[in-house]
């Protein structure tokens, strides 16, 4: 589904990704772990199409297409979804309006008919209930005045509604208490599907106790330095990242 080959990228002239390669197949649930500054969030942002990153070498192919050539909205419509580490507040745009506009844009792309307001509302309310969110969130402005946990829940809600093919989660566990973490994990697990890939970018093992990955990739110095199964995450939890940094240099 997603094939990243020898990706090099710069931010403000500084090289962050230095030859990153990664294969993600449909059905995969994988974790990308790594110390701070290893390039995890940069990777997530580049995949979603954020400005400010200069790709100097390598390629990213998504379902046979050059992902980097697509605008952010085209990527979203093609089924790529990024759950942000810091979801931005958008005063004046309410949640349900955003959800509906996004949902219909994606359906239109797939050649499906737009859902009418009543059916859409019923669909969203069911998903909100699943995410243990109060229906009043629908008519509040996007993320405005939400707590950290509410913002993350809202990201997962959007993901459940939009049903992406490739879900990228950027540090979704950061800033969550244990109850919120469980709800968020429940949402992510709900999306596990043989047709779908889920990529979790995370510093800690915590989320992986609840969303158990099939594969773990360790990022250091802008490259994947080690790949393994879920046991690799536990090893990192125990030993930290330093032993892998040495591996990069070696």
């Amino acid at each position: 589904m997603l094939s990243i080959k020898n990706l090099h990228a710069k931010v403000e002239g500084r090289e962050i990704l230095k030859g990153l390669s990664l294969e993600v197949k449909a059905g995969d649930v994988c974790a990308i772990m790594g110390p701070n500054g290893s390039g995890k969030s940069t990777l997530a942002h580049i995949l979603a199409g954020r400005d400010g990153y200069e790709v100097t070498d390598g390629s990213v192919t998504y379902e046979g297409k050059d992902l980097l050539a697509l605008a952010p909205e085209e990527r979203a419509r093609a089924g790529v979804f990024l759950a942000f580490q810091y979801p931005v507040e958008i005063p004046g745009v309410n949640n349900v309006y955003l959800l509906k506009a996004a949902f219909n844009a994606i359906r239109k792309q797939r050649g499906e008919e737009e859902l009418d307001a009543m059916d859409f509302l019923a669909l969203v309310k069911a998903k909100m209930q699943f995410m243990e969110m109060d229906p009043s969130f629908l008519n509040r402005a996007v993320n405005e005045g939400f707590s950290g946990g509410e913002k993350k829940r809202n990201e997962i809600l959007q993901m459940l509604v939009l049903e992406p093919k490739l879900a990228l989660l950027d540090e979704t566990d950061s800033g969550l208490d244990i109850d919120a973490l469980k709800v968020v994990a429940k949402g992510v697990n709900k999306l596990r599907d043989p047709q779908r890939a889920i990529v979790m970018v995370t510093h800690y093992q915590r989320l992986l106790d609840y969303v158990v990955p099939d594969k773990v990739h360790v990022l250091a110095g802008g490259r994947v330095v080690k790949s393994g199964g879920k046991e690799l995450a536990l090893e990192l939890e125990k030993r930290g990242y330093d032993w892998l940094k040495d591996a990069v240099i070696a």
Partner: protein
Amino acid sequence: MSSALAPYLEGFAAQPKPQAWLHALKEQALQRASARGFPVARDEAWKYTSLAVLEKRGFKPARSKTPLDAAAFAKLTLPGLDCPRAVFVNGRYDAALSRLPQGVRVVQSVDADESLRALLIAPKGWEEDTFLDLNTALFQEALVLTLDGEPAEPLEFLHVSVPTIDSASHHLRSVVKLGKHARAMLIERYAGLDGAKHFTNSSVQIHLDAGSKLTHVRIQDESLQAFHLGRVLVEQAADSSYISHNFQAGAAWSRLDLAVSLSAAGAEAELNGFYAVNGRQHLDNHTRVDHLAPHTTSRELYRGILDGQGRAVFNGKVVVAPHAVKTDAAQANHNLLLSRGVEIDTKPELEIYADDVKCSHGATVGQLDEQQLFYLRSRGIDAEAARGLLVGAFAERLMALLPLPALAAHARRRLSAAISQIALPEQS
């Protein structure tokens, strides 16, 4: 003596003679204006707004009434707003199009009795104002609202302008007096058919007695060729409340001075304003709130969108007098810039002469937030729609405050026409 005022002096001479007492008052006002002339750029209050074109155009006061048929008039009214109204066409009262409620009268200067005199006196600080003096000299009908109690319906002062061969000036004078504990909603609106190239010189004086409350919606929808100058001068007694919604999207050149005096304890004012400029429009808002007594409150929120080569000025002054302790004043002005060619001059001014007060102010000037744009796009919304949504969201903060659905719907429509890339949220 300023030659720029010659057309106004000629106009005065050509007008029907008012009652003797009023004639004297008008003559004095004209002499003062003529001796003083128009303000110049040296005046701090006119630093960013040039009067050169206004002077050059020499707008003579309109001489005769302009007839307006019902079909043309219907185009200028607000859909869904059906309330008593006083209609002026090209600066002159039109009885046939009006439906005056109790408490409203139109006083002709030719037969005005002296009871009007007190209502026309310039409030403190406005004795030296050329435009108010010109207005006093040149109005031919004063719109007078005196109210006790609480009418069920709002009232509309509707000033419409249609194109004429010459470029005339319209001098509109209104006075509003709410008695003790009276409550009312006034909609003051200026609407122009495309091509109307007049100069509106409007003055509204408002007196609010103790415990009264006025909601004042002012909508400036002049044609894009028009000049518009307005004064709204408010004096408030104890525990009175003034709520202003000031919406501006019209005129080639416009300037509004809104001044509120909170003269006794418990008086409060809420000033909400929204402006949009595009093309080469120039729009200037000067607001001033005087806290003259203890325990007075003011809240002010102005937002503007600038596109094309539009230019806007915001000057918000708050003055707290020496004994006005426990004053509570907050002011904010936010500007959204959509093109490189625009210019905004925003200046909050606080003058505080009392201790134990709570005052805040802030002004921002910015473009659309890149992070918000990216967030929306990452959800599948295309760049253009995302921009429209964010522009709409910026405006909606004030649209949502408008007191009647018909007014909010109109303001949103008007804004969509003024700023092409805006998308306003669907209304449920």
